[in-house]
């Protein structure tokens, strides 16, 4: 059904207002009516990420990837939010994760956006770090985009040491490492 069809079957005036009457106001003769207006709004906040995310971001500035473990399930969350979402209880243990993981899922981006996007087409992926229960997001580089596959082993490529900061941008991208792919079955439930 097109929009026009929908208008045709709805009662008269449901989606339209009656014509307005401006006849009594001479100033409107011959002027162009305003139909759209730009009403931009901007608000600046003072963002404080809380304890768990501060720890994670501070870790990145030291080339460390820090997760947090649930005492109940043993699941390791990264990036951590201080909470085990399955239990609704605080995570109890800091875990430093290795700089190795597997591609859990990916897509090929043909239309880039954002200031730091790589040239298109490129591959963005979910990477399941060894020992983690959930995957992190990042672009895959140093391999043609059409050769990326689920189960492929990857490692982070860090910015130069003098550029390290408490930011996810301390990891520039992920690249393949010379290890055999893991079976896709082993990634089930972690995507």
């Amino acid at each position, binding site marked *: 059904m097109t929009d026009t069809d929908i208008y045709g079957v709805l009662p008269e*005036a449901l989606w339209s*207002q*009656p*014509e*307005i*009457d*401006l006849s*009594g*106001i001479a*100033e*409107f003769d011959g*002027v*162009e*009516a*305003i*139909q*759209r*207006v*730009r*009403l*931009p*709004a*901007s*608000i*600046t*906040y*003072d*963002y*404080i*990420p809380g*304890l768990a*995310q*501060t720890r994670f*971001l*501070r870790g990145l500035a030291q080339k460390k990837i820090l997760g947090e473990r649930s005492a109940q399930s043993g699941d390791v969350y990264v990036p951590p939010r201080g909470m085990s979402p399955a239990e609704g209880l605080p995570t109890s243990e800091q875990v430093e994760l290795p700089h190795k993981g597997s591609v859990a899922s990916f897509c090929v981006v043909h239309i880039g956006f954002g200031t730091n996007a790589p040239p298109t087409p490129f591959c963005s992926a979910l990477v399941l770090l060894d020992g983690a229960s959930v995957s992190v997001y990042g672009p895959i580089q140093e391999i043609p985009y059409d050769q990326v596959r689920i189960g492929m082993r990857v490692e982070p490529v860090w910015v130069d040491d003098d550029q390290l900061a*408490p930011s996810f941008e301390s990891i520039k991208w992920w690249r393949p490492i010379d290890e055999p792919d893991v079976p896709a079955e082993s990634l089930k439930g972690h995507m």
Partner: protein
Amino acid sequence: MGDAALPADLLRADLAIEYPFNRTTGPVIGAFFTGLRERVLVGIRGADGRVICPPVEYDPVTSAPLTELVKVGDEGTITSWSWVPSPRASQALAEPHALAMIRLDGADTALLHVVAADGPEAVATGARVRAHWADEREGGVTDIAYFELTGEHEGTEA
């Protein structure tokens, strides 16, 4: 903002959110904005005959669609107000001013706008005000730069 003491190692950063809204006015609000650009103020006649300004599309009591736009004055009367001693950058006047409800001549409801005044002692409920038009007008409530006090008071001879 930014004045709270932080435990030593907590991160903080400015987070600027921008909403670049481009809104469709519809015929009624569009007419009010068109009028502002042309330096004429309009209201709309409600089901009970009262003039609602700024105009609304539907009667606030009966919800009947309203159609009859009527010209109202660019002078009016303050029906209530408060004083803004430290305006924020986005507000219509950089200097301390009044925020006021103004019932324009010929209207039965009040419009919200700012009133330029030397101080709160110069403002009063019942004081008469006049629209001061912005030099550049694009169709919006800030086409009225502010209202200025005429020096008169409702119910007294000028």
